[in-house]
């Protein structure tokens, strides 16, 4: 007899997400539905506004993926205005984006995702001495690693447990058989969990140096950046580099070795392809290394059906969104430039479950060439690997060698988590070079940070495609009479959290859960582990343009 399980709220993510699954008698997931439960309608709000204000507004899609929507919107406007920012602006944007990658990925692994792999309670019974040995077997100089420190961490946790008030750690899944790490490995990662809290502040400061603050920096304008004083100030650049060094330390001596250590114990999941999901991967390309976006740190492209032997070129016209199973009217797939939708909320069925055959989410269903696609670090790495990108291939091959896993292990929950760690290193290793590039350019006498431009008076349209931490992000803007006439964003979590489409194809979250066996049916640990591996961000995912906004309130609730 099939049993329906609702997991709502999914915690340790941005925003409001519900997952429902159906398990068979042996607790294996046979079907899944992912539903976003909040709609704010920011794209509706954008209509009729000055396009130059759009960046700051859309940035409020999300405070976790802060900066990225700001940048995508500015890129879309620059495309529409026909203006190219000067090299210094491109570099400064890369520097701000880099600070986000480093901060966000570290925070994701330790604070949002870590507790799906790591059992805090088990860490209490670890032998600190053995934990030091274990950490040293994965890294020559592990981060903040000593017997005394590990003991202190244990004491701190014990006090916490004894107080009887576990706060954020209360009532979780400690002791679940799906936790596979030995106590010592748990202790090492838990200790880094605490270290990473402090380090994430340093990363946020990196962003603030050029961005003014974090979250929600305020230094981009159509045509360039505003932080010219910071760029011209050697001390400022020094402050940035100093913090970069700190971040690199935790990436190389904690984050990467911890992921590899976890991979060793969860190897079975990797080779079994647990949590793999849809077989298609898409990357818009990110971190421009030249001013024409020809040379990119993350390559642009598509891999279909996991065929890494045949990487495909990206064709922007093949991107569509549809709403057959989303709480909006209409069902035909539309290109984002034409995306127009109206809310049509139909709620849950009489048992309080999602109406899986009808509409069940505020998230729309983006498709590429009519198929669901996964986006994010794994997609970037699959595309890069398929295209033979040297840096990406090198990182993947060495990680595979170290863990003894085949390349197909990439297609799993574990692979997704590992790709995120590897790309953090990739970005961290390149960042210093960008600071040097900035200095070299200024030394040449080029201090430009802005290209003069104004809102065109004739109707124009433009798009901004980029790769923020969570994956392929696109903003499409149309401008008429100098104000926004249509705005559409198709964001990473919309791709990944997508509900079914007209053809009944499941979205990436849904597909990735099929076949996963729950150790304990009343503890959704395996579900959240796989969902978290995508790094969900719901606030980003939900927003649409509504042509007749004042009618919205009239819709009846079923």
């Amino acid at each position, binding site marked *: 007899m099939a049993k329906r399980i*609702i997991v*709502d*709220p999914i*915690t*340790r*993510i*941005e*925003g*409001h997400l519900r997952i429902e699954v159906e398990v068979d008698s042996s607790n294996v997931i046979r079907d899944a539905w992912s539903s976003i*439960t*909040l*709609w*704010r*309608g920011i794209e*509706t*709000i954008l209509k009729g*506004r*000055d396009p*130059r*204000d759009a960046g700051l507004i859309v940035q*409020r899609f999300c*405070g*976790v993926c802060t900066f990225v929507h700001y940048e995508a919107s500015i890129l879309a406007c620059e495309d529409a205005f026909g203006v190219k920012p000067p090299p210094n602006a491109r570099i400064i944007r890369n520097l701000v984006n880099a600070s986000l990658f480093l901060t966000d990925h570290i925070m994701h692994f330790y604070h*949002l995702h870590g507790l799906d792999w790591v059992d805090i309670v088990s860490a209490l019974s670890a032998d600190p001495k053995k934990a030091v040995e274990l950490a040293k077997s994965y890294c020559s100089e592990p981060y903040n690693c000593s017997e005394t420190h590990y003991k*202190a961490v244990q004491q701190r946790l014990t*006090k916490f447990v004894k107080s009887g*008030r576990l*706060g*954020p*750690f*209360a*009532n*979780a899944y400690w002791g679940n058989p799906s936790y596979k790490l030995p106590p010592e490995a748990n202790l090492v990662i838990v200790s880094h969990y605490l270290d990473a*809290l402090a380090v994430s*502040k340093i990363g*946020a400061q990196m962003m*603030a*140096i050029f*961005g*003014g603050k*974090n*979250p*929600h920096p*305020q*230094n981009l*304008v159509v*045509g360039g950046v505003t*932080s*010219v004083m910071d760029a*011209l100030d050697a001390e400022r650049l020094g402050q940035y580099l100093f913090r970069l060094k700190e971040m690199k330390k935790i990436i190389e001596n904690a984050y990467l070795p911890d992921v590899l250590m976890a991979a060793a114990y969860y190897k079975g999941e990797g080779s079994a392809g647990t949590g793999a999901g849809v077989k298609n991967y898409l990357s818009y390309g990110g971190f421009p290394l030249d001013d024409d976006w020809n040379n990119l740190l993350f390559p642009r492209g598509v891999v279909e059906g996991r065929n890494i032997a045949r990487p495909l070129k990206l064709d922007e016209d093949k991107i569509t969104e549809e709403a057959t199973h989303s709480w909006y009217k209409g069902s035909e797939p539309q290109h984002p430039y034409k995306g127009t939708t109206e809310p049509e909320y139909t*709620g849950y069925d009489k048992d*309080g479950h999602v109406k899986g055959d009808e509409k069940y989410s505020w998230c729309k269903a983006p498709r590429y060439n009519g198929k669901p696609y996964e986006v994010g670090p794994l997609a970037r790495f699959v595309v890069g690997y398929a295209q033979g990108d040297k840096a990406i291939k090198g990182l993947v091959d060495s990680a595979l060698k170290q863990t003894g896993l085949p390349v197909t292990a990439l297609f799993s929950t574990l692979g997704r988590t590992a790709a995120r760690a590897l790309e953090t290193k990739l970005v961290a290793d390149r960042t210093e070079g960008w600071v040097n590039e900035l200095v070299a350019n200024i030394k040449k006498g080029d*201090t430009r*940070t*802005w290209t003069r431009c104004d809102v065109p008076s004739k109707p124009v349209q433009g798009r901004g495609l980029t790769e923020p931490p969570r994956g392929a992000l696109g903003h499409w803007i149309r401008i008429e009479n100098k104000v926004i006439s249509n705005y559409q964003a198709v964001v990473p979590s919309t791709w990944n959290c997508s509900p079914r489409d007209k053809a009944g194809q499941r979205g990436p979250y849904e597909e990735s859960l099929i076949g996963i066996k729950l150790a304990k049916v009343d503890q*959704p640990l395996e579900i959240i582990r796989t969902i978290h591996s995508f790094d969900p961000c719901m606030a980003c995912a939900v927003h649409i343009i509504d042509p007749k906004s*004042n009618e*919205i309130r009239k*819709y009846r*609730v079923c």
Partner: protein
Amino acid sequence: MDKNTEYHSLIKKQYRELMEHCRIQLDKTERELPPAREDFYSSLKERGISRRDFLKWTSFMTAALMLPPIFRPMVAKAAENFSRIPVVWLQFAECTGCSEAFLRSSYPNVDDILLETISLEYHETLMAASGIQAEQNLEKAVHDFAGKFICVIEGSLPRGLNGKYLTLGSKGKTGIEVAKEVTSKAAAVICMGSCSSFGNIPSAKPNPTDSVGIGKALGITTVNIAGCPPNAVNFTGTILHYIMFGGLPPLDSLGRPVWAYGKRVHDFCERRPHYDAAEFVEEWGDEGAKKGWCLYKMGCRGPYAYSNCSKVRFNDGISWPVMAGHGCIGCTEPGFWDTMASLEKPIHEASIGGGERTVDDIGIALTALTTAGVAAHAAFSAMRHSGKKKAGTSSDADHKE
């Protein structure tokens, strides 16, 4: 100056009484609230913060809270007890930016520890449990700490579709239902950020989901830590105040703590001398921009926004928007996306109108409004402290220039 005037003895008497009140309150906290999980002073030591650093911090915080230096020991004691206050953090129509701001606070050092050791009984972004287990945690916290916990809210409440633009939990409750349940049991409600304070982005025109701030949606009094996102130091200060005096700090007419939102961004701006000297940035990246001149002509809303951003800055004081060469967007004011647009034009060319003289005119008008509000709220707070609860507040009143 003669120190024995009637005025002086009055002031002295007032502070003596205030201190006595504070002492009673702190004793009460120690007696009634659950013990701290971690010893505050050993946390300081672990983090390498010396006694001297801590004293410096108490001086800063005392001054920031607009208290005379004799209150320093009280602030220290409140800091010690900070982690005893149970906090339930709810998220509605939001972007998690306020949580991020709160997690990444590092100014000054001690705040950092306060926020790390805070007793978060419920916070969806941080908690390990999901689904049913998460819902149980919320029920338990609200039950166990009824009347004692502080409810912090991030995000506005959509009222459209009978509230169903936002549903939470396995039973699909609306945001408004959850907010009502939890806030009715809370000792105080603190709105973290402009969304929960005033509606902010979801309520910008045409407000498609009919979103409003918490105070307006539920008809309750809230402390509004405005900003998009706000500076976490304003949050810490408010909680410290609560621990010391058992009540909310004096608020302006918009529910914002006066100690943090009593002055305009413009008043303490490092570029203010350039404003006075009429040295303006004329376009992005020009010579003026390189020299750090005033951003008024580039749309800076500092003259119209009440906040301490220019004083405390962000992220360990490393920067703030004006330092990064961009104008202030006035994010601590209700309805700023509409009233302050277009953000890259000076306000006389945007929506308010009236030429440069308006800076001062509007400033004076706003100050008058705020002052009146302060007085009203002082009276209101006194009523509240004496146990009378009154529904409805002006904190969501439409912002009129």
